[in-house]
């Protein structure tokens, strides 16, 4: 893997931002152990996973706290890790336009700079907790861009998460008055299940979904309800639950399940 830490001015955020990008290149393990290392060649592009952090985090979380670089290397998968503050992946009412940044600006930027495939069938998004919601939001906000999305311990139902943080039964750093304009997310595009309804009405192709949550996680009940809602909406859903809580042990273990589940061809794509 080549590891790129990129700092650049984002016109949609109106400040400099950081991303981390992994692009598969032959590594010492492949050379020492005579593994396949011929995927890095002229005209090669790579399948790409956008990987989103949770609340309290940033773009460094995934590569600091998990083995994602090794797992992605095995699959010859490029990974793009952006920062979205505690925005809940919204265009904030008082704040920055993270959704526009992630949906419009970032894919154009990274596919321009790096050898990443632009095809829907090669473009995926995943995240944990708030980033699990973010993955669903990006995928269903622009379903023509993503073939699949994955949520780990995700805040799949933002209406329920807002209700529970308002009540104080779930902790969160979210400044809801800054995120939304005096309204509840229910019935808006911020509500994943409303978004899916609108996608279906518009006849858009729906990404498939991988959903995983720890059975001892505080967000488990919301995921159980979310599973029912995905099924009711007719989503192509792969659901898993395992013993575990809301922590990096769970995410480091189960991001590997996500990579096994994604339609990866374990090689570069789009020759020539």
């Amino acid at each position, binding site marked *: *893997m*080549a*590891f*790129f*830490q*990129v*700092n*650049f*001015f984002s*016109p949609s955020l*109106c400040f*400099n931002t950081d991303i981390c990008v992994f*692009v598969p*290149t*032959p*590594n*010492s393990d492949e*050379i020492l152990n005579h593994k396949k290392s011929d995927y*890095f*060649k*002229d005209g*090669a592009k790579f399948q790409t996973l956008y990987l989103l952090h949770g609340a309290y985090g940033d773009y460094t979380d995934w590569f600091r706290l998990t083995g994602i670089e090794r797992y992605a290397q095995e699959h010859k998968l490029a990974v793009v890790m952006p920062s979205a503050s505690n925005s809940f992946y919204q265009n904030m009412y008082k704040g920055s336009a993270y959704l526009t940044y992630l949906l419009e600006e970032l894919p*154009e*930027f990274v596919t*321009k*700079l*790096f*050898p990443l495939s632009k095809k829907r069938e090669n473009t995926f998004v995943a995240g944990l907790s708030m980033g699990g919601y973010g993955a669903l939001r990006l995928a269903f906000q622009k379903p023509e861009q993503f073939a699949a999305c994955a949520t780990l311990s995700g805040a799949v139902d933002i209406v329920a998460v807002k209700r529970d943080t308002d009540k104080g039964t779930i902790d969160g750093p979210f400044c809801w008055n800054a995120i939304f304009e005096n309204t509840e997310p229910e019935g808006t595009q911020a509500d994943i299940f409303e978004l899916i309804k609108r996608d279906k009405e518009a006849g858009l192709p729906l990404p498939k979904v991988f959903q995983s949550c720890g059975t001892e996680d505080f967000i488990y009940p919301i995921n159980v309800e979310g599973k029912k809602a995905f099924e009711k909406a007719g989503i192509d859903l792969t659901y898993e639950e395992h013993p575990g809580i809301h922590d990096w042990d769970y995410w480091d273990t189960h991001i590997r399940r996500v990579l096994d589940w994604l339609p990866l061809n374990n090689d570069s794509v789009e020759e020539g």
Partner: protein
Amino acid sequence: MAHIDCSFYSTSLKKNAHVIVFIPTVSADDYLEERDVDYYKEEKRFPVLYLLHGSYGDCMDWSRFTGIERYAQEKGIAVIMPSGENSSYVNMEAGEAYLTYITRELPEFMCKMFPLSKERKDTYIAGLSMGGYGTYRCALERPGYYGYAASLSGALDRNVLESADMPHMKKMPRSYVNAVALEHNSDNQLEKLLEKRLSEKAELPKLYMACGTEDPITPSSEAFYKKAKELGVEITYEEYPGVHDWNFWDSHIKDVLRWLP
């Protein structure tokens, strides 16, 4: 500019390599002044400057100690700053193959990763001090690959350099000098390599060099310049007041960019 910090396994160095890259992208000024910039145009390929640090330095030096990011943004070129230890950018006798890395692997890697022009006329190399030497060493190693090569305060003639009164020379551990073993390969003597390329009728890159009038390394640069002129090589030499420091390099990298097409 996008400031990109790269780490990857290098097959020629047999270890991880660290490189800083600048690629032109929309800047805050572009955004504020609503400039019509075409950085995102399809098939756009940027001219590229490989920029080498001096001894005791690394790939971060140019971005930390100069305004190269701003200057390159104005010119609309990409900049690639690798690390070369104290190798003089040669294939060390008892160490890493930096010459192979800089002239072969790095350009191949960067052209696969980023939207860079592969045309000779768009491929530049420059450096300071040891990196000035490295610039000409690389340019003469692969004269058909680089269109332009610029040395600032370059340690070009190694025999003359030996007598320079510089801590850079005295403080370098002997063990390291022995590992590099410049003297064991005559191609490492730039004047000899230049003669060799001329006898092969190679098309040389355009050459530029600048030195400070108070810099003890200047005689080493001048000796190479004289030799090149004797051989009838086209080379531009500019002298400015200054010593062997970042004030000089920050000022005169701008002259290099002005000299480039």
